[in-house]
């Protein structure tokens, strides 16, 4: 199978092209077959390839195939190549596997939508871009995928083209991502300037084999600069502080899109990139510190915001941001395999949560407000049960998937000498359990808070939607078993061992052994924290429904602060957008030309418009004025020469 590696990304691309070009004419069943079929086949191909990889001896678990020389100019060479090693193997399985399930789910969810073919075309394209990203053998190809997912997310988030908010959200996602991409591409340039190559293998080999030239850095050196620039890209793509604002807005897309973006693809790209560049990060203490701090802060902040949100998809969105924070914490404390492990389990249960939420929204006829749900378990039993499993998994209850990965991260933080990080992480785990069960109880338990008209058409979703839920529920249950921790006495962590060859070039700090019994105690503590969260949620939302309202009323200030998401959007508006708008309106517009721009300003557009307004003064349409610019330019250039040489 390894010879046909190119099939894996190309299948979705072909599907996308076919659906995009001919889907409209050939009808929806054709679209379904092509769309899901290409994703399914890609999954099978990926599975076959990874199976080959598993069969190979550990030292042979790296396949790098170059197809053609993409760019060759002077000493700069970039091959079009795909890399399959344990790390990308895990990623392609997750991407194609979860992606395929989401595709199947979309058959039911998007049924009857006018842009059915368009939707599947975009989804396939998205898979393609993500696969290019994870299978890239060099930084440049990775950047191609990196930009590609950004572009596709723009198409998918803005899918409901009639809704202005959808278009805005798409634009926001794209612009924020582009800001991150600047950092990324600059990092890539710096890599090239430093190592003279963009191939992962070559760059990492140079780093690992030249400890004198690239020592582990404690201060800010070249590697730190590269790592931090690349991390800016990761912050944008993986929605970390301060660039996380696009992700909650991305809920404007159809729910399967949210599932795809949040669970299996796009947002995990940043984590993947950091782990892929482990040889760089692990040699820079400063970069690791930044990654850890950003990760843990994001985890905590997003979890607290999640406590108060009432839109079911927004709660999930903030939970994604929070869980991504965990993954970065793992990378920050050099527990790279734990980060990827959590990435995988998270893909299972987060996809499940989103699809479950989609099923609820579907059943409720588009309602997303938790305060208008309640008692749904009677109407949608399969959705209810699978959602419960997902909530238990994300909370980290033994023996579901989330338990193993989250526990490993928290323990690594402690073992790596970061007790504060561990403590905050533990508290965040409690919060996570609380808000996930708050969601579950509000939606499925308690009195029904909706009208009769909604009740009439309440129904469980069709099998094409519930079967994916069940599959994902199984994965969320057993997915953690691939990486059983050593303290269970069943041998070393298999998952970490499998990944090890891909992380061979990473710098290993010295660690001290901690006995298994201590590890066991830590696991116990984190389960306890989750249980406290769950019972608190049960007390407030099932046992004593008045308590929640009371608490919100008592702690008016903090509650509003959280409900308003720390006012971050408002702060961004105030600090960045508004001053520009005000200054421009008061000082520039009135002075120059009132009404050049008709009020509608947002984000980048606003600030650009201000500068543009100033520059329009230059471009006043008069030949004489233009001539004076030419003369000014000539005078300035001459002045320079007279100064420098005269």
């Amino acid at each position, binding site marked *: 199978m390894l010879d046909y590696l190119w099939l894996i990304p190309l299948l979705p691309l072909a599907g996308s092209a076919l659906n995009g070009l001919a889907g409209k004419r050939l009808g929806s069943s054709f679209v379904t077959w092509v769309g899901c079929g290409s994703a399914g086949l890609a999954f099978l191909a990926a599975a076959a390839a990874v199976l080959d990889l598993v069969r190979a001896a550990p030292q042979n678990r790296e396949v790098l195939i170059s197809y053609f020389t993409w760019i060759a100019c002077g000493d700069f060479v970039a091959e079009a190549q795909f890399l399959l090693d344990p790390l990308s193997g895990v990623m392609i399985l997750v991407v194609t596997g979860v992606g395929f399930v989401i595709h199947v789910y979309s058959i039911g969810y998007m049924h009857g939508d006018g842009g059915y073919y368009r939707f599947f075309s975009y989804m396939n394209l998205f898979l393609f871009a993500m696969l290019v990203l994870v299978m890239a053998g060099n930084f440049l190809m990775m950047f191609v995928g990196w930009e590609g997912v950004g572009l596709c997310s723009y198409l998918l988030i803005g899918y409901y083209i009639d809704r202005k908010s959808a278009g805005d959200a798409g634009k926001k996602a794209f612009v924020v991502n582009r800001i991150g991409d600047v950092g990324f591409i600059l990092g890539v340039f710096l890599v090239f300037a430093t190592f003279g190559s963009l191939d992962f293998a070559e760059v990492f080999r140079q780093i690992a084999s030249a400890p004198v030239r690239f020592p582990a850095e404690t201060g800010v050196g070249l590697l730190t600069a590269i790592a931090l620039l690349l991390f800016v890209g990761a912050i944008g793509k993986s929605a970390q502080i301060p660039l996380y604002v696009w992700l909650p807005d991305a809920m404007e897309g159809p729910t399967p899109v949210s599932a795809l973006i949040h669970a299996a693809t796009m947002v995990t790209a940043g984590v993947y990139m950091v782990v892929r560049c482990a040889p760089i990060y692990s040699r820079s203490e400063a970069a690791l510190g930044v990654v850890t701090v950003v990760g843990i802060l994001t985890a905590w902040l997003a979890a607290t915001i999640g406590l108060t949100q009432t839109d079911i998809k927004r709660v999930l969105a903030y939970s994604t941001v929070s869980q991504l924070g965990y993954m970065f914490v793992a990378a920050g404390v050099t527990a790279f395999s734990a980060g990827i492990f959590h990435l995988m389990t998270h893909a299972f249960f987060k996809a499940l949560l989103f699809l479950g939420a989609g099923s609820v929204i579907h059943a409720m006829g588009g309602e997303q407000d938790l305060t208008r749900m309640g008692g749904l378990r009677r109407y949608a039993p399969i959705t209810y049960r699978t959602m419960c499993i997902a909530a238990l998994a994300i909370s980290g209850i033994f023996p579901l998937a989330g338990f193993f990965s989250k526990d490993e991260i928290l323990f690594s933080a402690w073992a790596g000498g970061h007790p504060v990080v561990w403590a905050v992480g533990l508290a965040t785990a409690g919060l996570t359990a609380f808000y996930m069960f708050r969601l579950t109880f509000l939606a499925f338990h308690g009195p029904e808070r909706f009208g009769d008209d909604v009740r009439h058409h309440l129904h469980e979703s069709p099998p094409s939607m519930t079967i994916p839920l069940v599959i994902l529920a199984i994965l969320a249950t057993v997915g953690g078993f691939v990486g059983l921790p050593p303290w269970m006495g069943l041998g070393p962590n298999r998952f970490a061992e499998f990944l090890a060859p891909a992380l061979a070039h990473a710098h290993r700090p010295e660690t001290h052994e901690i006995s298994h019994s201590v590890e066991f105690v830590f696991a116990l503590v984190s389960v306890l924290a989750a249980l406290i969260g769950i019972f608190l949620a049960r007390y407030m939302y099932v046992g004593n429904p008045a308590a929640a309202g009371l608490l919100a009323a008592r702690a008016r200030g903090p509650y509003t602060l959280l409900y308003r998401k720390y006012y971050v959007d408002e702060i961004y508006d105030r600090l960045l957008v508004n001053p520009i708008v005000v200054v421009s309106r008061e000082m520039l517009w009135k002075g120059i030309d009132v009404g050049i721009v008709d009020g509608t300003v947002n984000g980048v557009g606003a600030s650009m418009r201000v500068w543009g307004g100033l520059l329009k003064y230059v471009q006043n349409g008069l030949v004489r004025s233009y001539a004076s610019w030419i*003369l*000014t330019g000539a005078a300035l250039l*001459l002045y320079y020469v007279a100064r420098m040489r005269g």
Partner: protein
Amino acid sequence: MESALDTALFYLFAVVAMAAAVNVLLQRRVFYSALSLIVCLTSVAGVYMLLQSPFIATVQVIVYAGAIMVLFLFVIMLLDPFSAEAARDKRRYLNYVAVLLGLAILIFLYPLLNAYELAHVPRLLDSAAGGVGSVRRLAAVLFDEYLLPFELTSVLILVAIVGAVVLARRQAKA
């Protein structure tokens, strides 16, 4: 070549040329501007004489001051000979900007021109056969070294003729 007469003549031509050039700017009626420019061109032809380039000086008077400027005057007469430039100026400040920039160019250019060292320029080309202004030598170089540009001037003129005809032709439709 140094003589008091030469110097005196140079300053005479230079002052007249400059005065005429400034007058081109000062005149409100374009007709007078054009006439002033002819004066300027003719004085520069005088400077050419001082530079021992009689042929160029002749061409300057006949072709430049003669033919080309007549074309100008012709068009001026055709369109709008004597109306003064619009008194209302959309950007009056541009006048000051222009003077300022003109001065700036001069101030910055002056040291650069002043630093010019004739001795640093290698004399690579012919200094044979007659003076610089000899028509024979002009022709020899023009039709040998500069054959390609010379032929291309015909294309240039052709383009100009086609362009002028296309644009200035009477509008076909009523």
